[in-house]
């Protein structure tokens, strides 16, 4: 006959109730700590990370704290041996670590991209030779739309480790043309005309002032360098329209754009000229005779 001591049952029940209360207490305390940590991180990161990304990171921090407390504090209270879990977790960690190396790398890179913020949504950028507009920056990848309208997803690890050129990070940028005019043309007049064209374009900035000067005396042309500053948002429109206006206006003012050409001078010019004259006379006679016979 089995006999159970009522006192031991009572003690066992009391212990269980105390454990449950202890666990609930730890959980509530952890939730409060998690909440406080997210408030603190929110204040610290709010100027560094965009709102959407900040919420994701804060959730990861909050659930991370709760999970750690459950594994390392609540499991031992419940009698679950975490040392076994640690061994299992260690092995699983190595396996998962190898398998998810690139995922973790992308994740870490994503966090750095969000805090460092070399690019923002809407920026015109060139990442690893891929120019386009940034559509989205996620925790694992960055999405850009290239200028042909194609969707390109770039893993954050690649974005972070490659050279990023952000065309609109600064409010203004400069671009340059080389205008080659013929040697016979007046370079001073050409410079004046080009300066007037730049002045007439509202988006060609007054300051920093544009630069127009003769840069080199080339093989075929006098090369005039034209450097223009424009707002980063509009520089490409200015670049596209200004060059053709320069070409047309210079042409209208008798200044021609030079093209590769070679002038040949003969050593014995007189003898050569006589020979040409003879050939011309022979040709004329021949044409005359042909006409008569017809």
């Amino acid at each position: 006959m089995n006999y159970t001591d009522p006192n031991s049952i009572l003690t066992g029940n009391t212990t269980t109730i105390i454990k449950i209360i202890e666990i609930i207490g730890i959980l509530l305390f952890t939730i409060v700590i998690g909440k406080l940590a997210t408030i603190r991180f929110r204040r610290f990161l709010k100027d560094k990370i965009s709102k959407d990304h900040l919420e994701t990171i804060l959730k990861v921090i909050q659930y991370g704290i709760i999970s750690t407390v459950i594994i390392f504090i609540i499991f031992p209270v419940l009698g679950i041996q975490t040392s076994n879990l640690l061994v299992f977790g260690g092995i699983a960690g190595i396996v998962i670590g190898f398998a998810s190396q690139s995922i973790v790398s992308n994740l870490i890179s994503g966090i750095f991209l969000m805090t460092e913020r070399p690019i923002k949504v809407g920026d015109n950028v060139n990442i690893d030779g891929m120019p386009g507009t940034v559509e989205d920056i996620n925790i694992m990848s960055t999405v850009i739309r290239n200028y042909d309208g194609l969707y390109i997803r770039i893993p954050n690890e690649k974005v972070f480790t490659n050279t990023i050129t952000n065309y609109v990070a600064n409010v203004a940028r400069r671009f340059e043309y080389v205008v080659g005019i013929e040697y016979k043309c007046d370079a001073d007049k050409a410079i004046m005309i080009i300066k007037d064209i730049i002045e007439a374009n509202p988006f060609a900035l007054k300051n920093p002032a544009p630069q127009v000067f003769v840069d080199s005396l080339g093989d075929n042309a006098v090369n005039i360098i034209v450097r223009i500053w424009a707002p980063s948002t509009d520089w490409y429109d200015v670049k596209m329209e200004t060059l053709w206006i320069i070409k047309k206006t210079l042409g209208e003012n008798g200044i021609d754009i030079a093209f590769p050409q070679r002038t040949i001078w003969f050593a014995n010019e007189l003898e050569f000229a006589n020979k040409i004259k003879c050939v011309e006379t022979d040709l004329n006679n021949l044409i005359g005779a042909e006409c008569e016979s017809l």
Partner: protein
Amino acid sequence: MYGSHDIPIILRSEKLSLSIEMEGDVKHYSRECFGETVNKIIHTKSSRILINPVEPMSLPKELTPYLLIEFEKLVIIEAESSIKVYLTFPIEIGVFISGKKKFEIIDVLTLANQKFTLYGNPRDGIICKYWSSNVHASMPATEPMREGVIQLEIINTSTHLIEVTKAVFNAYAMKIYYTDDLVAMQAKMRVMAGEIAETDFINLPLKPSMRKSVELYTARKVQVLGTKFVMENGI
């Protein structure tokens, strides 16, 4: 040309022509300025339009809310003193459909030259609308359809002599007043030590008979947070 007009209307000047003609319930808006023609069809119960000068920030594109006026003459002010000067500023003309205390913009045009500039450096400077003005000791004569007058009080609060070459203003704060022959604003520039200045507009007419313009930011119900501008990149 400025003021409230009944529809239909035909207004013509040397550089500008503007008309609104009725065709049943539909109104045909047409405007020609410097060879640029704009035609619009407007469906509204309102039978009046308002034409008045607005902040010069919409054309050729709404790129910046800041206006930089470069002085053609250097202004030198001794320590702890002030001076009142008159500058010109570019005008854009707003055409509004006017209802009961409600104005909706339908067109913006300008006869003034358009130019942008950079204030500060390319990294952390700002793009501003550019205007070059002579500095006058008294009210200059202006073309009211093209340019207005700013009465600017420059106050040197520093303990040394200063040289002022430009002023940058926040267009959100512009308080424009007009009559048929004058468009004007009043502004203040407080120069502090270290070549830093703060600019702001004064909401008062230059002459008692002047009417207050309906500003674009007011018409669009844009909430304005700050009206002052701090010039940190040189004066």
